[in-house]
């Protein structure tokens, strides 16, 4: 009996987590339902057009389930979404879910490379800023961060294209590959960097790298600003602790004190920050992908927006929202696992 109680007590946080997840997902769906069915003056007109005869209008209204009470419509909507039915895209006349599945790897590839850049540059620069707090490395990192928070990401992308593609010719232009290479690599994961390596085609790989480097740098800049700022404040907190003094008194090298002892203790909160910045990259990717014609989820959503393809827009919104919530939760979960104090 005691054991049972112990298990129940252990499980309680997870049950609560699941419940809150459920409520959040329902809320997400309620919002997309509201946006798709309630805000438009007449969703039927949006489909059949203004000149449709009354019979067509009525039939469509019935077919869309709009003659039923709103709450029933919402129930049907949840049922459909849970079964992976996000509706048909007007633009591609394919199921939205299928479209999204096709474009997601590109976004995933871009956001991952961007996050790697953000971590590789952001963490060391945050550490340096904390170690030299109040001196020039600190100010430099702060200014870089301020610029990252202030610059419109789409404009930065355009400026990058202008300089590195237009003037210097160092990188590939918009898109994931030169047109010449398009469709030459067999799809396995949908991520060209990996697919080209699997196929063993180094020229395609190099071309893909030259195309991804600029958008991922631009996207990574934002996460760099965030990660370095957070690393700095975590490190400052650790460097003031007594165990650091102890390690120094013991004669440990300064590099070891900073990079092993202090940074090791910063890793836990840092994981949360990195997961959060990854989630925010999904958002940043909407504008970056538009600028670089990168055929990912963000580009899909904005293209659908321009042609008023609501089910594609809302399908994309649901997917991004769920990934966002999932990543937030995942970072929370990681935190609990890695840091025993948080249990």
């Amino acid at each position, binding site marked *: 009996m005691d054991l049972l109680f112990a298990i129940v007590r252990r499980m309680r946080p997870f049950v609560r987590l699941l419940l809150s997840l459920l*409520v*959040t997902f329902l*809320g*997400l769906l*309620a*919002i*997309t339902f509201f*946006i*798709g069915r309630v*805000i*438009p003056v007449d969703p039927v007109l949006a489909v059949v057009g203004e000149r449709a005869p009354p019979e067509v209008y009525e039939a469509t209204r019935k077919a869309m389930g709009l003659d039923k009470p709103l709450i029933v419509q919402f129930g049907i909507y949840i049922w459909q979404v849970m079964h992976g039915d996000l509706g048909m895209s007007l633009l591609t006349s394919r199921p939205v879910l299928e479209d999204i599945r096709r474009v997601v790897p590109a976004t995933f590839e871009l956001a991952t490379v961007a996050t790697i850049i953000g971590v590789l540059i952001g963490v060391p620069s945050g550490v340096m800023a904390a170690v030299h707090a109040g001196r020039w490395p600190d100010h430099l990192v702060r200014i870089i961060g*301020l*610029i990252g*928070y*202030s*610059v*419109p*990401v*789409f*404009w930065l992308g*355009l*400026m990058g*294209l*202008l300089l590195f593609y*237009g003037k210097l010719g160092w990188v590939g232009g918009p898109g994931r590959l030169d047109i010449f290479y398009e469709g030459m690599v067999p799809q396995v994961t949908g991520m060209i960097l990996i697919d080209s390596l699997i196929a063993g085609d180094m020229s395609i790989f190099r071309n893909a790298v030259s195309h991804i480097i600029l958008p991922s740098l631009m996207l990574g800049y934002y996460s760099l600003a965030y990660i370095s700022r957070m690393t700095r*404040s975590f490190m400052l907190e650790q460097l003031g602790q007594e165990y650091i003094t102890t390690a120094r008194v013991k004669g440990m090298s300064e590099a070891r004190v900073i990079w092993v002892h202090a940074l090791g203790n910063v890793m836990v909160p840092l994981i949360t920050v990195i997961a959060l910045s990854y*989630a*925010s990259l*999904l*958002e940043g990717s*909407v*504008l970056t992908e*538009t*600028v670089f014609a990168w055929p990912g989820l963000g580009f899909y*959503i*904005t293209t659908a*927006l*321009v042609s*008023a393809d*609501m089910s594609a*827009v*809302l399908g*994309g*919104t649901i997917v*991004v*929202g769920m990934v*966002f*919530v999932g990543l*937030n939760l995942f970072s929370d979960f990681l935190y609990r696992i890695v840091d025993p104090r948080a249990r």
Partner: protein
Amino acid sequence: MSEKHAISPPPDAPSGAGGLRAWLESETPASAFQAKCVQMWLAWLKFSANPLAVIGLLIIVALVLVALFAPLLMTHDPLAQSLADRLLPPGEKGHLLGTDGLGRDIWSRIVAGSRITLYIVALVTITAPLFGLLVGTVAGYFGGWTDTILMRFTDIILAFPKLILALAFVAALGPGIGNAILAIAITSWPPYARIARAETLTIRKSDFIFASRLQGASSARIVAFHVMPLCMSSLIVRVTLDMAGIILTAAGLGFLGLGAQPPMPEWGAMISEGRKFLLDQWWVATMPGLAIFIVSLGFNLLGDGLRDALDPRSGQS
């Protein structure tokens, strides 16, 4: 504490300091008004000692001045097209920053656009924090189910990435500057509700709240006149910090063609128009982007400075 004592300058005051300064630095203020002035003066001293914050303030003051005197600063009609003068580089034929694809003067369009930017920022920063304040104080003051439902709702909106939600709203409402502002406001109130709720929780059990309730004040009165004013200062700091984000979101919506519609000289939309000429006529897209960058940098610097000056918790950074 006598009036005379408060007004006489402290013994160690510099000899050049006038009566006003002494009055502002008094350690024994005689009235609530003076205490408030002293507090603001000290915050200002702290703020003005931070050069970056002062730069930020100057940028914003400049923005407001440019918007106020826009008709005087514009060298051309921002909407007047002249196909003969299209895509002129900066400085040519009296066009300070060149002309765009329709021969419109970019400098004049940027100056005119400052009004649109301020208009967007002003509307969002009036509506979203007020709504958040209302939700947060009501949730915090009443607690229980009211709190659970309101905060759940807040968290759900917060769970969405802001830009994506704003995009979906504008897609449903139809593009336009009014709908863009509405969408930004709808997606940006939740953090304010969170802050207001946290503040309310710390003051709702205070003696002065009980006192006014004993005097027969209604809950609505207590929330509106006693709780809300106390949440204001932390909200103001947060709003200033968010203004840059609002500008960037609005510009992003404009860039995607969902915000201000042509021919309105909105900066984001101008970048989008300049995109076509990016590689050959770089200035068309570059100039409005610089304007967005400088203004949002100004708001960020100002917000950081205000936070350091007003919020004692983060004073050391």
